[in-house]
């Protein structure tokens, strides 16, 4: 019960409280305490395998303990920088958004935790839709035309996608006809135990609808557009929140249905779909990197790419599955650093266009260096975590029955690395004189401190993962029925 109170009810309560508090600083303090509390508790729950009886529709298991840790880690850092970030807004209109910024962040935390902790497809659906609703107004923070369009598209496309996922859930319930769970509740666990009895046609249909529907939120090609627009136009902390945690919340839904299908004869079918979706996403990122003209959009596409890699790992299975789980954690941290430095650069230059930004290192060395380091980290340069998780995924692909996927993946990733590098180094090194600067000087503020801490965290976690992450992840992998 205590987890339920801390993870879901407490943020909701704080959100209700913030409705009455008008002072921004006070709102920030309350949200920060909630975030810290959430992080501390989810860390305890993860490391000690702690669990107690939760209300109906909620349950802790290995997978959601891990994803909850990722969520609260991302959320805490995002809230920490939020006050500083929104105080230095770009336009005057954005001031109206102050009144609901922290309130909606708390609603987001509550609904996202509910989605992760749910053990019932219906509850999961309701909570995931609630996360969309809480994040949509946050995308429209800057109150300009682009943000409005992005918010509309995100709200509409994702709502449509989630409606599709609902059809998938209905099909899942149809698949249980004439079995011992007919007419029962849609609990994940009961479907997993009775997976073999389910009707394969409905089960396959259910997987197609849930995967395609949730793809709009995960950002799997070809349904990634709404998500990319939203990530590219939201304020940087929100973009980091979306890339680091919201996409994974949608991914866990696909993993739940995949877990059911894993134990049936339809497994190959679902696996092929996952791999196709994943490769298409990486190809989408690969194509965009050739014509990129907006650096926040570039980062949004980088999220599409990395969620593609994670999905690929899930589909390939065995050791690649383990790598994919690790990758989810490292990617979420990298994305925070990337988006925060991009956000600072946006502040200094007032533009998201790549050719209007150059000489970052000369004018704003701290942000410039952090941007380079984050680029290195996301590209899989050691000693940052992504190197190890990608290596694990590559190894998994190589020893799987589809080793040729690795060649394709390597080529795509190489070109993404080169193109992203070209853009990044042009931005930080190239110098032109007629550049307009909005910011005067780069001071070492909380946003930089958080970025540096996260860089350290990335290295520390990578070096100590075998002690505190991997044992739990191996358990999760085994629960999915994969051999290691």
């Amino acid at each position, binding site marked *: 019960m205590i987890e339920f109170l801390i993870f879901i009810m407490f943020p909701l309560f704080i959100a209700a409280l913030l409705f009455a508090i008008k002072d921004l600083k006070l709102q920030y303090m309350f949200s920060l305490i909630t975030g810290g509390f959430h992080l501390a508790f989810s860390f305890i729950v993860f490391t000690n395998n702690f669990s107690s009886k939760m209300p109906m*529709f909620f349950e802790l298991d290995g997978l959601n303990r891990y994803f909850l840790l990722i969520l609260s880690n991302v959320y805490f850092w995002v809230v920490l920088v939020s006050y500083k970030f929104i105080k230095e807004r770009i336009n005057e209109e954005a001031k109206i958004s102050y009144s609901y910024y922290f309130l909606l962040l708390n609603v987001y935390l509550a609904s996202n935790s509910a989605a992760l902790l749910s053990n*019932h497809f*219906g*509850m999961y*659906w*309701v909570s995931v*839709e*609630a996360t969309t*609703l809480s994040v*949509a*107004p946050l995308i*429209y923070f800057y109150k300009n*035309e*682009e943000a*409005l*369009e*992005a*918010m*509309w*598209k995100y*709200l*509409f496309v994702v*709502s*449509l996608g989630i*409606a599709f996922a*609902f*059809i998938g859930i*209905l099909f899942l*319930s*149809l698949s*249980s*006809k*004439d079995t011992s769970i*007919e*007419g*029962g*509740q*849609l609990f994940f666990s009961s479907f997993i135990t009775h997976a073999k009895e389910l*009707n394969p*046609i*409905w089960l396959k249909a259910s997987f197609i609808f849930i995967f395609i529907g949730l793809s709009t939120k995960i950002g799997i090609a070809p349904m990634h557009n709404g998500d990319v*627009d939203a990530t*590219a*136009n939201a304020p940087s902390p929100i973009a980091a929140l979306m890339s680091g945690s919201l996409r994974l919340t949608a991914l866990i839904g696909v993993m739940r249905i995949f877990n059911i299908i894993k134990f049936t004869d339809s497994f190959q079918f679902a696996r092929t779909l996952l791999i196709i979706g994943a490769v298409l996403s990486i190809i989408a990122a690969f194509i*965009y990197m050739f*014509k990129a003209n907006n650096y926040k*959009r570039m980062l949004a596409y980088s999220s599409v790419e990395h969620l593609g890699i994670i999905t690929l790992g899930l589909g390939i299975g065995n050791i690649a599955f383990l790598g994919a789980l690790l990758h989810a954690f490292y990617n979420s941290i990298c994305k925070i650093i990337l988006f925060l430095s991009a956000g600072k650069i946006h502040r200094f230059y007032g533009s998201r266009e790549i050719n209007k930004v150059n000489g970052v290192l000369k004018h704003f060395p701290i942000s410039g260096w952090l941007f380079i380091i984050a680029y290195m980290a996301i590209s899989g340069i050691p000693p940052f975590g992504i190197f190890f998780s990608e290596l694990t995924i590559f190894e998994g692909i190589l020893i799987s029955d589809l080793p040729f996927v690795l060649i394709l993946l390597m080529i795509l990733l190489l070109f993404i690395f080169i193109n992203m590098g070209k853009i990044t180094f042009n931005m930080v090194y190239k110098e032109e004189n007629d550049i307009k600067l909005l910011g005067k000087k780069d001071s070492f503020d909380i946003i930089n401190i958080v970025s540096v801490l996260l860089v350290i965290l990335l290295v520390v976690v990578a070096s100590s993962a075998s002690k505190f992450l991997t044992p739990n992840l191996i358990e999760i992998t085994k629960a999915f029925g994969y051999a290691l």
Partner: protein
Amino acid sequence: MENVFSILFCLTLFYVAVTYRVKAYVTILAIQGALLTFLLFIPLLDNFNPFSVILPLTIFVVKGVVIPIYINKIILKLDVKRKIEPTIEQISFLSLVILTIVLTFVFSIYLSSITKLEIIPFAVGFSSIFTGIYIIMFRKKLIVHVCGFLVMENGIFLLSTVVASELPMTIELGVMLDLFVVVFLMGIALNRIKSTFSGFEVTHLDRLKD
């Protein structure tokens, strides 16, 4: 009895397919909401208990009353032109809808031979989902897109009433709440879009590209 209401529901789809008026969409949404409520009341005729009235009543209030009134208010407030401005001829749209309905019926009959299935509500629900998608694809006005989304949601709801295991009430109520908030947020966004882009059509939304 379920079949009668499902057929009536199907007729509303035809009306949606031929009408030129934005207001007719709102009326249809209200009618569909009422039909879904009746559909939920049928099982209550045999064994009535006061607790199970909550869900049909909520559906009626949300789908039949609140959402249509809200959309109507937006239409009046934003002074939307009364015609829907289709991108294809109405007659082709109607043929498309009819073709879809025929195909979903044929498909449902085929499916019913492999699993136990109530053919008519299942086929109508699916046709409604497709019609909703067509409305979104072939209409320019964003407010009509919202109506298309709701037609689709109603179709899903019809589908869920014929599926074996029912969702528990707390979750159904959660779904309703989510739906209401989605429409509410879309309304606010439309308001903004009207004042920002001084227009209301999907063609205005073309700033974001790769």
